[in-house]
């Protein structure tokens, strides 16, 4: 499908496509109720309760008042619907804000200020500097004479550097006035989500005759949510609008996330439902038999003669209703309530407030905190997530002299400063390259401060550093560069710029010193690209060593070199270069060849080392979470080298001789397949050894692997605890998440940029860093934190507690419902299988809603282990992963407990209140009190730490139980009139309750004690250790591990020099073809120092 955008055509053609209204809302006013109800009823539990509630309307079969189900049901639905409506309203408000923003648009030939939502396809939109692009545009004109403009695309792909966009040749040089009247047609594909590709054609209509169709690429577009920078104005034709923009298409509808706990609860509910059906069938059959054999003889019952349907339907349905309480209706409300409290605890946490910006963490999605405690894989973005995305010039080596050391930067090194004072020529040249060997644009503000607009943060760091070292790059006007050095102003003329390509790995400028007229070639680039081209007479060993040393410190290195060119040589070469530049065939190759003819015989000046500053605590965070059994994948849009470099410096792949870093590369299917198989084989071999392997894959190979070898790649994903994926697109990130999810792992994606949004939405848990790249990720994410290191606390403290608490709360909810249900079932056996309810409607409802819900709700304050202990022993997270605290076998324990307690309550109350005391209401209250007392003690026993609130809730609830029942007993109209007063006056009632509690809790307490002391789980051991006072354990093995980056990195030894990190590559290069390989089969050994649960082990344990 093609779409045609007619430029400036205000006629009917505009109506073909939608306007620019953005809509992220889920509901409209009209469809809210049906759609919301439909969604709520898609959950099994809700369907079940609706069915039960409807059946209860049939008086023939209902044992209790229908209000006891309808009331809670309507309440639950109202709560969820209100919450949904509120969320959707907030989305509506933010959409409205974006839609009503005013932009300059040409309508009917006149430039007008209209609301962004009224932009139609074909309109020309005018933007000023720092404006946000309201929809996808094809650039038509800019303030720049050469038709260039700069955009910041961080909202789109997360890259913060500026990118150049260029006016298509056909429109080049058209006057701004004329642009308002321009007519033409743009042919482009139907909207898609690929933000790196755009293939369109432009044809202008007379009077702008241009017979040729002008091809358009992504370079000619301005995409929605980019910002126009460094350009006075720009204008473009709207081609995709509203939700049909590239961003809108890639936004994807976020599916509501269901936590593993929710899924397990649904599963358990299903199991209970099946159990219930079995019980109902058994009781139904028994009921029919009893009716036929006994009931007819019980003359006082006056059993009527009914049709056969009666036996088949009514009796089982009665039991169904009697057993319907088996599935706790309160569980959803309780869970929603505690989940929102978990979220609040995250919001409130002082320890997750960033002290610089004073921004607290925030849980946007309040429903999935438990999943945080179950994370098995973390997929992390690199730039801005692990690093601060702030490049800082740290050290340099000039002419064999090392500047800067552990104690300080090169910038403050007195030796370097004095070398600058004295005017050492090498140092000055070095600084000159730092200052002008780039494409940086200085912008002088009104107050005189100079700001640099750099395409890559590396260049920015270099220019900044040079400025601090007195070499101030002041101005770039056309080809003239102005530099101020020690108060002197120097002018250079840029003769040629030899741009960076990933094959050449270097960039050069040819400049002429306007004072002396001398011509120089200034080059900077990767060491392996520069050093071999050095002048034969120069010793480069010292630079090799410098590069080695710096990269071991995790710094990004660049080599600087220069050569003076003779005028003749330059002129001769410049002809070749110009010719190469104008060729149409193989231009890139021809240029590279031309460059090679001049980039030789360098005099190497030195090496610079730039730090992409890691965020505080990243290595520690990764190490801690590794110990917690979480696997890390790094997904980055960056180069392989940079990624590996950062991975090394933040413990991601920590270097020691027993690990391996495996490459998956190749440009064709075959190559990828071979390399994939080889890696897989290595992985399989090494899993038996205590050796950790990580693999590295780039976007291109990943594309092929995902397309053709998905199974092999999935196998690999299961085997590998660590992976680095470079140059991946946002949708590939999402695909990787999808793969891990399909293997039934709980995934957490963390990122900070717009390019991470899809991954964040795809993952089970999305965490956004609200950092320098704006708030896109934070907005889309379930949780937003300010610093990567808060992740530890988010997972180990909040996630773990939430999971533990929910695991208890949900199983307990089933337990208490089963308990009362079992009693009802047992009672059926002594009530002639007739389906009489022992308890009255009020008691049943209050039992679910009050008596048993309130004490357990305070389990949200329970802490099995203190935060410090958990932080010191992150391994304890193991119990949370793979649902180890909430699964069918733990549930079986609770099921057994409820059965046991039901037997205890039923037997004791029936026998103690036999004969003359067996009055129905009284017996029912005895049994109910027995249940409520047992609940209180069960909660007490399962609580690990008692705060005042817990005591209040547990014991206060008991008091409330009596208060409430006294109140009911005081009402003459209620069925329970005087019952409770009578009971409480009888000593036998209290003896019965006392007996029930002890008989019910004694064995469980004894068992717990036995397990706790003689079969302790690791949680128990830590609890004991923590509470015995004393120092918490000898943590020798854990503490003795090297913690700091420096120490670990210093042990790094990389076998192949190729893998060293030649880092200079601007981040801006759009073509996915510019990957580089690390050499065939480039495996290099790394070590994992982390605690290692082998993959095999963790799989096995998952089944436990």
């Amino acid at each position: 499908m093609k779409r045609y955008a007619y430029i400036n055509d205000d006629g009917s053609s505009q109506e073909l496509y939608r306007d620019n209204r953005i809509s992220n809302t889920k509901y409209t006013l009209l469809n809210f109720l049906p759609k919301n109800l439909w969604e709520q009823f898609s959950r099994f539990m809700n369907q079940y309760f609706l069915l039960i509630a409807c059946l209860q309307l049939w008086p023939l079969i209902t044992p209790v008042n229908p209000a006891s189900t309808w009331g809670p049901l309507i309440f639950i639905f109202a709560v969820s619907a209100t919450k949904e409506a509120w969320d959707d309203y907030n989305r509506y408000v933010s959409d409205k804000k974006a839609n009503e923003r005013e932009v300059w648009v040409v309508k009917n030939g006149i430039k007008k200020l209209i609301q962004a939502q009224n932009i139609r396809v074909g309109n020309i939109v005018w933007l000023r500097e720092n404006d946000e692009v309201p929809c996808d545009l094809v650039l038509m004109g800019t303030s720049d004479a050469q038709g260039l403009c700069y955009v910041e695309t961080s909202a789109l792909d997360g890259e913060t550097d500026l990118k150049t966009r260029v006016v298509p040749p056909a429109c080049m040089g058209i006057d701004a006035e004329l642009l308002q009247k321009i007519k033409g047609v743009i042919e482009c594909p139907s909207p898609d989500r690929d933000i790196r590709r755009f293939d369109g054609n432009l044809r202008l209509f007379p009077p702008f005759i241009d017979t040729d169709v002008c091809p358009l690429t992504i370079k000619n577009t301005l995409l929605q949510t980019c910002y126009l920078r460094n350009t006075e104005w720009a204008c473009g034709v709207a081609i995709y609008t509203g939700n049909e923009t590239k961003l809108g298409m890639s936004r994807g509808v976020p599916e509501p996330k269901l936590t593993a706990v929710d899924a397990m609860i649904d599963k358990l509910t299903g199991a209970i439902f099946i159990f219930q059906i079995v019980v109902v069938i058994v009781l139904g059959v028994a009921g029919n038999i009893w009716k036929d054999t006994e009931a007819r003889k019980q003359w006082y019952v006056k059993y009527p003669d009914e049709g056969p349907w009666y036996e088949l339907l009514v009796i089982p349905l009665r039991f169904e209703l009697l057993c319907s309480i088996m599935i706790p209706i309160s569980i959803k409300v309780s869970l929603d309530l505690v989940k929102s409290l978990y979220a609040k605890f995250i919001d409130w946490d002082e320890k997750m407030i960033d002290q610089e910006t004073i921004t607290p963490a925030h849980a946007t999605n309040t429903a999935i905190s438990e999943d945080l405690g179950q994370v098995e894989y973390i997929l992390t973005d690199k730039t801005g997530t692990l690093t601060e995305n702030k490049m800082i010039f740290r050290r340099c080596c000039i002419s064999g002299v090392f500047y800067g050391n552990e104690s300080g930067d090169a910038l403050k090194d007195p030796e370097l400063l004095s070398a600058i004072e004295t005017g050492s020529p090498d140092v000055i040249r070095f600084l000159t390259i730092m200052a002008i060997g780039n494409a940086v644009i200085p912008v002088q503000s009104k107050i005189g401060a100079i700001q640099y607009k750099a395409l890559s943060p590396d260049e920015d760091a270099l220019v900044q550093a040079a400025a601090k070292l007195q070499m101030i790059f002041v101005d770039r006007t056309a080809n003239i560069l102005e530099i101020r050095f020690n108060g002197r102003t120097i002018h250079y003329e840029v003769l040629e710029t030899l741009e960076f390509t990933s094959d050449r790995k270097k960039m050069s400028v040819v400049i002429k010193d306007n004072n002396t007229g001398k011509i120089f070639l200034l080059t900077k680039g990767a060491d392996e690209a520069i050093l071999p081209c050095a002048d034969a007479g120069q010793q480069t060993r010292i630079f090799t060593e410098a590069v080695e040393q710096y990269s071991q410190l995790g710094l990004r290195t660049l080599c600087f070199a220069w050569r003076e060119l003779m005028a003749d040589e330059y002129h001769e070469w410049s002809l070749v270069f110009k010719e190469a530049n104008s060729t149409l065939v193989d231009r890139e190759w021809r240029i590279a060849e031309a460059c090679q003819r001049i980039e030789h015989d360098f005099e190497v000046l030195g090496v610079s080392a730039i730090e992409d500053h890691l965020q505080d605590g990243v290595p520690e965070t990764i190490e801690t979470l590794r110990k917690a059994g979480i696997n890390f994948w790094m997904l980055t849009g960056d180069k392989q080298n940079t990624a590996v470099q950062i991975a090394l410096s933040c413990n991601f792949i920590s270097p020691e001789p027993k690990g391996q870093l495996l490459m998956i590369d190749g440009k064709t299917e075959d190559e990828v397949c071979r390399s994939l198989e080889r890696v897989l084989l290595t992985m399989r071999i090494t899993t038996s050894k205590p050796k950790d392997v990580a693999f590295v894959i780039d976007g291109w190979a990943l594309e092929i692997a995902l397309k053709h070898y998905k199974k092999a790649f999935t196998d690999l994903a299961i085997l590998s605890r660590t992976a680095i994926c470079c140059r991946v697109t946002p949708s590939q990130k999402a695909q990787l998440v999808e793969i891990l999810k399909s293997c039934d792992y709980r995934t957490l994606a963390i990122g900070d940029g717009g390019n991470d949004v899809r991954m964040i939405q795809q993952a089970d848990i999305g965490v956004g860093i609200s950092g320098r790249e704006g708030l896109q990720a934070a907005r889309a994410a379930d949780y937003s934190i300010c610093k990567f290191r808060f992740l530890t606390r988010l997972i180990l403290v909040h996630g773990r507690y939430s999971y533990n608490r929910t695991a208890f709360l949900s199983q307990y909810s089933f337990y208490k419902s089963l308990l009362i249900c079992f009693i009802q079932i047992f009672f059926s056996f002594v009530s002639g299988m007739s389906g009489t309810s022992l308890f009255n409607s009020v008691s049943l409802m209050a039992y679910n809603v009050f008596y048993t819900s309130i004490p357990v709700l305070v389990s949200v304050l329970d802490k099995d282990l203190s935060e410090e202990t958990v932080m010191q022993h992150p391994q304890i997270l193991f119990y949370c992963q793979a649902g180890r605290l909430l699964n069918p076998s733990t549930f079986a324990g609770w099921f057994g407990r409820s059965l046991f307690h039901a037997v205890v309550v039923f037997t004791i109350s029936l026998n103690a209140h036999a004969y003359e005391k067996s009055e129905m209401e009284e017996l029912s209250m005895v049994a109910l009190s027995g249940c409520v007392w047992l609940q209180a003690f069960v909660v007490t026993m399962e609580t690990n730490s008692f705060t005042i609130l817990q005591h209040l809730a547990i014991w206060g609830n008991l008091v409330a139980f009596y208060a409430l029942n006294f109140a009911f007993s005081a009402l003459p109209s209620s069925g329970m009139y005087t019952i409770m007063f009578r009971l409480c006056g009888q000593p036998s009632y209290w003896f019965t309750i006392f007996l029930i509690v002890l008989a019910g809790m004694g064995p469980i307490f004894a068992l717990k004690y036995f397990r706790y002391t003689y079969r302790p789980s690791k949680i128990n051991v830590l609890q004991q250790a923590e509470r015995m006072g004393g120092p918490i354990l000898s943590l020798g093995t854990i503490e003795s591990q090297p913690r700091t980056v420096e120490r670990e990195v210093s042990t790094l030894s990389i076998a192949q020099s190729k893998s060293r990190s030649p880092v200079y590559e601007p981040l801006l290069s759009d073509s996915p073809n510019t990957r580089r390989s690390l050499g065939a089969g480039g495996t290099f050994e790394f070590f994992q120092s982390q605690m290692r649960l082998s993959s095999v082990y963790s799989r096995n344990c998952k089944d436990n």
Partner: protein
Amino acid sequence: MENPDTSTSTSTVRRNSKRPKYSKFTQQELPACKPILTPRWVISAFMLISFVFIPIGVATLFASRDVVEIVDRYDSACIPANETDKVKYIQTPGDKPCNRTLRVPKRMKPPIFVYYQLENFYQNHRRYVKSRNDQQLRDSKEANSVSGCKPEDYNNGSAIVPCGLIAWSLFNDTYSLSRNNVPLNVSKKDISWKSDREHKFGKDVYPKNFQSGGLIGGGILDPNIPLSDQEDLIVWMRTAALPNFRKLYGKIEVELQENDVIDVALGNNYNTYSFNGKKKLVLSTTSWLGGKNDFLGIAYLTVGGLCFFLAMVFTVVYLVKPRQLGDPSYLSWNRNPGWH
């Protein structure tokens, strides 16, 4: 969407104002008591329980044993030997007298309660237990509210008071007791709950159309006595939760001596024969715990004994195989270097 700079700054401002106030609750740092199950603690707890339970068990058992109880099953004995069809016999109209002799095993102090005990009688049956209308019983103006009383709601189109199966099947055996040919006064006063007489059964509600239909169930009520004074009905209408139950028939306010012989003149009217239900006459004294019921005492002794046993076992295990609590060597990641 606004300019990112302004958005960041505004949101920072907004968030600043939202900066939570520190409190122990919000930081989940409320002072907490974290009990730990040390052997000493657990063993003493079990010991304590057994020391409390065994005396209670003994006391309740004594209380139960102190109760003197005479139970006489008369359902089959009161059928003349020549009657083969018991059901037909009981359904025949007319008096069916029967004499029983009881011997007092031990001195019985007043008050002595006279109960009738029915077995295999399902007052808790679903159809039965709800077959009544409390409003009608309470309020004379509500005589026509018979909802829930089916099939005993109307008789020839007029409402039955009291309606429903429970009232309809009122127990109607009669006992008159005499000792040494001197009639023993069995008081029928105050055998029902005071609250029922005062609030559940109206003083101005009189039986109407009761047992006047084709099929007569159980007892007949005097239409001139208000329901609040029909104590037998009130007792009967307190449905029992179990198929075996006792209901109070009356009270004897004189002391019975050991070996006293009591003659009971029975009016055997109530049909339990069609469902093989037993009928028993019970004379019982009462203790502070109620009637004779050994269950509580035995259960207390059992639980107390078990607790004692557990305490012993735990003590032995603790002494034989002491175990250090919180020993880090139990942490497998400390123990197993291979995991590093």
